[in-house]
């Protein structure tokens, strides 16, 4: 009896081991697939070879030369300016929109609310062309400003929808309580409404920021001859082979994005935890 039991146990253990190792392999493959390209970019930013196909030796040269590559650096700064400005603008517009739709009842509200999904659902290339046609019909020279406007148009709906989802669970009695305690309209907004929906605003802002940093297609239609973002610039350069200092810059950007994402999640989680709500996982 005991012998059979032991055999069964052993078999069970073997099966579990098999299952576990399969799960680990599967999971690792997924992550490898996701992160290997990124790791290669980081690795090749330290490659001595200019031909980038094989790793020949370790160097910091490209990280140094990156800072003297004016056109590359400029596009990097442009990316940051466009992303920063469009994020701030779409957060403000999107938040006000969500709050307005929450507070007021008006005609065509459902039409307006459903039409938010159009810029999200429409193919980017169509969106890009229509923006280009719009700007040229107004005889506006494309450049930084048009790019910022374009980025606001596609990221604002994401902010609005994220903030609106947050507001949906908001207790209207909180605003009444604030007013009851003597707070006027603006104090009620800044002391109660805004802090309550802040986790949603941060999520929306992060979404807007990453969408803007990522964007190639719409920026391709709305950039100007001397106002290009980093993705656009790298795309141009890649036709003649990407210089390794672009890898270095890309690595810098990856690190920056990860740091911003993690810290915003940290802030958000601290807020949610204090309020006894469920936290978001990174």
């Amino acid at each position, binding site marked *: 009896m005991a012998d059979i039991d032991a055999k069964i146990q052993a078999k069970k253990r073997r099966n579990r081991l098999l299952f576990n190792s399969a799960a680990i392999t599967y999971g690792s493959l997924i992550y490898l697939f996701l992160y290997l390209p990124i790791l290669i970019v980081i690795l090749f930013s330290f490659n001595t070879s200019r031909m980038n196909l094989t790793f020949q030796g370790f160097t910091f040269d490209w990280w140094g030369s990156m800072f003297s590559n004016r056109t590359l650096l400029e596009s990097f700064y442009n990316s940051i300016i466009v992303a920063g400005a469009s994020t701030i603008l779409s957060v403000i517009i999107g938040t006000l929109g969500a709050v307005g739709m929450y507070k007021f009842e008006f005609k065509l509200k459902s039409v307006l609310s459903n039409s938010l999904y159009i810029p999200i659902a429409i193919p980017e290339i169509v969106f890009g062309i229509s923006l280009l046609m719009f700007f040229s019909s107004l005889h506006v020279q494309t450049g930084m400003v048009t790019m910022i406007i374009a980025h606001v148009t596609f990221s604002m709906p994401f902010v609005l929808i994220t903030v609106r989802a947050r507001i949906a669970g908001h*207790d209207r*009695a*909180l605003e*009444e*309580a*604030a*007013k*009851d*305690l*003597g*707070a*006027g309209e603006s*104090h009620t907004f800044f*002391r*109660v409404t805004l*802090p*309550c929906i*802040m986790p949603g605003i941060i999520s929306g802002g992060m979404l807007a920021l990453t969408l803007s940093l990522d964007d190639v297609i719409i920026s391709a239609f709305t950039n100007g001859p001397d106002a290009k973002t980093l993705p656009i610039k790298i795309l141009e350069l890649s036709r003649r082979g990407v210089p390794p200092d672009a890898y270095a810059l890309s690595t810098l950007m990856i690190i920056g994005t990860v740091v911003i994402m993690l810290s915003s999640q940290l802030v958000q989680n601290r*807020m949610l935890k*204090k*309020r*006894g*709500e469920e936290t978001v996982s990174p």
Partner: protein
Amino acid sequence: MDQPIIRLTGVCKSYGDNEVVKDLNLEIMPGEFLTILGPSGCGKTTTLRMIAGFEEVTKGQVFLAGVDVADKKPYERDVNTVFQNYALFPHMNVFKNVAFGLVEQRIPKAEIKERVQAALKLVRLEGMDNRMPSQMSGGQKQRVAIARALVLKPKVLLLDEPLGALDLKLRKQMQHELKHLQQELGITFVYVTHDQEEALTMSDRIAVMNAGVMEQLGAPEQIYNHPATRFVADFIGESNIMEAYVDSITESGIKCVMEFGDFTIRRGDYADEEMLYICVRPENLRFTAEPVAGFNLFGKIKEHIFMGSICKTIVKLPNDQEVFRTAPPSDGLLPMDSVVHLSWRPTECSILRTKEEQIYNVIESSVEMEGFDARQIL
């Protein structure tokens, strides 16, 4: 006499065609504990919200300390509210929640600290300053909500079923504490509840509302002993309600006839043939083996139910209606199925005219629609 601190004159409120508060007239004196009592959906919250300024009145006027507040925003009115579900600010700790109103008044930091501590002490939450609302029990949150309102030293505090979410024991304890606070601080309380026992134990006066109409306003004893309408008799406590009509008016008294007997009342300006409702509280109804002068009513003992400190005796009348009496249990219980005579002291019964009954019938159907049958109390 002081002037009323709150005065409602002819206040009506409609949502579209739905009239939820109808011609409400009410004067509340400084320092009074007034309770608005009524079943769910009768317009209690709406009435409070009109006083606080969250809801505009459709018709009529609201006066606070003699001033018409029609165009005053909630933050301009000298009243504070304890909300039905507390409405504590989730992103602020207890201290900041309580300090909220003081910060709005730009009071110096040191004084804020002092007053918040005093308010927390008052509701027995000392040392809880840094707790977040999410880390507190229902009773504690409720006390924070009260402290947050009290710290502003309002002249009027509006409380909307503040104890609704608490268990029975905590509710009893909080009732006691609230009443004590109110007397100590001399604040006017307008207290909303649908719990009649709570209303009877705490209030100076009770306004009984039903379907948007204030059916009776008076002291708890008055409401209980002399209900003005059948609804009040039914809703507050338990009542035996019997139908009768005026048969003949003579020098010696007024003879009222029921389906199964009659009785005589001494005085009253009732008209011939007038339909009446006779309401007798179960503790005032008497069952005797011998007939009592002036009463010619009888029934059969159907059941004795022991309920600890009291015993409930149910009697079936000839028309199959059941009436009951509650009394301390005694040895001399009348045997089952024996015939007993019904009587009561003239001062211990309420006689209601059918004029009110007509109102009541209308109301009754609307109450029933909400799944609430007032007669189930019987």
